């Protein structure tokens, strides 16, 4: 029995039946992390002792005939944007380099209560801002399919650790595509649920009205298993939906007859890589062969998705990140060191800058030193767009466009059950290729941001490979709370294809 080869569903069953112990399972993945993560940098923190202790406790309970949670013994990697009381939570930022939260995020609490074994915290773009994971303050994640390429972002560490068999399941967060785009680039399955499905309590906020937590795994069936634990109402999150949690795994078994999938012609216009286009068209054909019907639909305002997103998200971020001021926790600039630039730290303090007060200086210098360039860029964008005299032209107008985008989806879902298309315009791009061109980087989310703006769910899963051997992602989007259908459609596709079973060659 080789735990690395098992799906999460099979692993949980194997532990339950005693075919493999939770400790054996955990050890197998920890060993794999040791062997390959030096090349991938998927983890910011591996909690070897904590994970093994947890696994041993689960094994002891099983032996004693005690009750086991639904994820008993399942190793899970958690994006470092989710608070953990027993591990630092850094958001891959110097600002929170030594921050130990006093509480577990609701999702982490639920995972622990379900007897999952949290093996570590995964790398990400700083404060979840980025599409390549190159904005991590600590390490660049390498795509397991080609170590010279980006894993996507911001949940790049979560995607890469699943792709490289370092964890069967990882938790990501998705504000504009941060689960789906890295899932596509790393050849795994990632679900961004409908806004409000998974509690955001303990998720360090980037853009509160867009952030949503979701599972990343090898298959839709594994994502369904994790969703049963992490989804559900939380009275501690005012935006949490009060709906009952569906039995996602059981609903996979319902037949998929008469499924109507929408195809948006605009998705295939300029900018889409021809190899990705071919893979996506083949997936449509596979769905058609499986009994689905394909219908052309329009999302007329989707073309405004990126500009709308890059107003709303930075506006919220500029306020959400105001708390990192050095006063109460996080990075604080040393007093009285002057204002010289520190080489290698990536910030530029202007010589001769004067401050209103020692307090203002502490604020300015703490933030100048603690935040990376992309975070600063977005804070400045948002601060500008919310300023008196600009609010109506930028933020208020973006909110109006957001409503139009949402209405487009409502109209489209009158005609079809789901909308299919590419997750990302290209397969994994080279590290460094876009990192000096913020606008090019912003466009990597062009197919995904609209689901966040509309608050609906989306899933990405592999639908082929480029000639260079890089995975291609297919995205399905559904109406609000259509996660059972998204998972079922993806699972049906995965029963007919084996793209999701292919693994990168990353020898131990």
């Amino acid at each position, binding site marked *: 029995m080789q735990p690395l080869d098992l799906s999460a569903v099979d692993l949980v069953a194997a532990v339950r039946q005693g075919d493999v112990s939770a400790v054996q399972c955990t050890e197998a993945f920890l060993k794999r992390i040791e062997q390959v993560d030096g090349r991938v940098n998927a983890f910011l923190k591996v909690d070897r002792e904590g994970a093994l202790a947890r696994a041993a406790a689960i094994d002891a309970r099983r032996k004693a005939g005690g009750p086991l949670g639904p994820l008993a013994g399942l190793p899970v990697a958690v994006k470092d944007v989710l*608070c953990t009381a027993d591990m630092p939570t850094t958001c891959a930022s110097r600002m*929170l380099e030594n921050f130990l939260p006093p509480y577990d995020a609701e999702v982490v609490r639920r995972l622990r209560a379900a007897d999952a074994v949290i093996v570590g915290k995964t790398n990400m773009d700083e404060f979840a801002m980025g599409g390549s994971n190159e904005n991590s303050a600590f390490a660049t994640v390498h795509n397991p399919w080609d170590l010279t390429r980006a894993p996507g972002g911001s949940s790049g560490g979560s995607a890469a650790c699943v792709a490289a068999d370092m964890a069967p399941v990882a938790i990501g967060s998705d504000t504009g595509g941060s689960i789906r785009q890295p899932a596509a680039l790393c050849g795994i399955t990632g679900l961004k649920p409908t806004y409000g499905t998974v509690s955001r309590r303990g998720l360090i*906020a980037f853009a509160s009205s867009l952030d949503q937590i979701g599972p990343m795994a090898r298959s839709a069936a594994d994502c369904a298993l994790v969703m049963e634990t992490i989804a559900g109402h939380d009275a501690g999150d005012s935006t949490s939906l009060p709906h009952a949690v569906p039995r996602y795994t059981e609903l996979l078994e319902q037949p998929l007859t008469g499924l109507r999938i929408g195809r948006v012609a605009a998705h295939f216009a300029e900018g889409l890589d021809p190899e990705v286009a071919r893979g996506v068209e083949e997936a449509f054909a596979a769905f058609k062969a499986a009994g689905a019907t394909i219908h052309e639909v329009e999302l007329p305002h989707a073309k405004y998705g990126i500009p709308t997103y890059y107003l709303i998200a930075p506006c919220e971020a500029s*306020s959400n990140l*105001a708390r990192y001021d050095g006063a109460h926790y996080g990075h604080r600039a040393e007093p009285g060191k002057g204002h010289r630039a520190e080489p290698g730290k990536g910030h530029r303090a202007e010589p001769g800058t004067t401050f209103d007060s020692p307090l203002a200086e502490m604020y300015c210098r703490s933030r100048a030193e603690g935040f990376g360039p992309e975070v600063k860029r977005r804070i400045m964008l948002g601060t500008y767009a919310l300023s008196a005299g600009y609010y109506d032209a930028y933020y208020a107008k973006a909110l109006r466009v957001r409503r139009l985008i949402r209405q487009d989806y409502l109209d489209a879902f009158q005609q079809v059950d789901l909308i299919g298309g590419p997750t990302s315009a290209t397969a994994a791009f080279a590290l460094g290729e876009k990192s000096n061109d913020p606008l090019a980087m912003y466009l990597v989310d062009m197919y995904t941001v609209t689901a966040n703006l509309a608050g609906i769910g989306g899933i990405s899963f592999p639908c082929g490979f480029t000639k260079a051997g890089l995975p291609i992602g297919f995205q399905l989007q559904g109406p609000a709370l259509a996660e059972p259908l998204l998972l079922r459609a993806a699972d049906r596709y995965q029963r007919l294809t084996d793209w999701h079973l292919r693994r990168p060659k990353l020898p131990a």
Partner: protein
Amino acid sequence: MTTPTATAAPYTTIIGLEVHVQLQTRTKLFCGCSTRFGGPPNTQVCPTCLGLPGSLPVMNRHAFDLAVRAALALDCTIAPFTKWDRKNYFYPDLPKGYQISQYDLPFSSNGQLEVVDPKGAFARNVGIIRVHLEEDAGKSMHDEAAGTADTRIDLNRAGTPLCEIVTQPDLRSPQEARAWLNELKLLLVYLGVSDCNMQEGSLRVDANVNLHIPLAGEGGAEGRVAKTPIVEIKNMNSFRSVERALAYEAARQWEEWQATKAELGTTPKQTRGWDDPAGVTRAQRHKEESSDYRYFPDPDLVPVTVTAAEVAAARAAMGDPPTVLRKALEAKWKISAYDADVLVNQGRDLVAWFEELATLVGEGKVASNWMQQDVLRTLNERGGTIGEFPVTPAAVADIIGRVQKGDFDTSRGREIFAAVLASGRPVADVVAGMGIAAVSDDDLVALCRELLAANPKVVADVRGGKEQAAAGLIGQAKKKNPNVNPAKVRQICLDLIKGM
């Protein structure tokens, strides 16, 4: 510095107030932490009110309902839909870097609260522009001892629910402002909305003030009215300070006007702090640009809807506010406006005590007199609340009843009241213990015959038409028997003389 009265002054003082009131809730506005005052620093905090990464707010519905009650009492319109906004600014006692407040859609607006001087000096209906709900910030304590100049932050207060009440500039004198604040405080305490304790910071006032100065036109014609620049006064720690600061500021603006003729709009709005010991306002440092708080809707919270039925239920549960109660007491118990004002200003519990007494006595005027002259006077001397007062309305009603029956007179009744208060014993015991017993009519007649026989001069005077001469007999009667009713003695003596 003296303030010219409204009629004598060559200007009109225009005052608007901005009042922050902490709501009397057990827990904070967006988390479950205690709002208790005076705990050790930073002991009533959690990830949410500390603004820790990942924490989220959840609205305390009880706080919202209390705020609705306050707004209804201020005659405001309750918005059917309201939302929360973030007011962004950096300060160490604001751990999130923004305050959750309400910007363009406050939960209530457009109300009024009247203040009437019981002595008739003024009556002013003050418009309320808006009442909104927000979270309080923490407290910064600047410790400049030993040259350290450290600032310490206590976040126990951070997140306490706070109602901001903004008035129209309808007040016309510092005295009116103080009286209006007293009325507002009374109202909010009546409704159980706030304890309005200024020492503990549960009520804070900022005032905006300027002068309207009528200018003479050409040839003696009426000219335009000049307006001085509006000044906001902060840091006033009592209603008395508010009155003093406004008086000082009005006089200061008048002097400045005479020197500079500077009018509203020519200078940026100035903020001045009240220095209470020095009795002056001082200009506070202000930035070149006005603050830009970059308000936007808080995406962590959902909008709040209030139905007409919920408003009606809140109104029904509210009870009478002081203005209504004063008029109701006047009408129901036939007491003067002044007396009703005194009773109502003592709070809802005292009014209930009075009404119980008046009901037992069967009329209001006598009950009100006893309240004002005996109960309130004693209460003021002893301190404490009416709830702690050792004498019950039934006991006072018992004493009043015996006086009305003629068992003894009012001054004797007061002595009994004092004895009941001191001993805590029932009225009947005290009366018996003081040897007070009703004197029978037969005994009285016998006593009077004895007195008349001993005082032939009095008898002669009364016969000669000087009925007042009988008064001399009352003192003698009381000496012989302290329990006699003076009025009865007088009447019996007169009747006996007539029959002689």
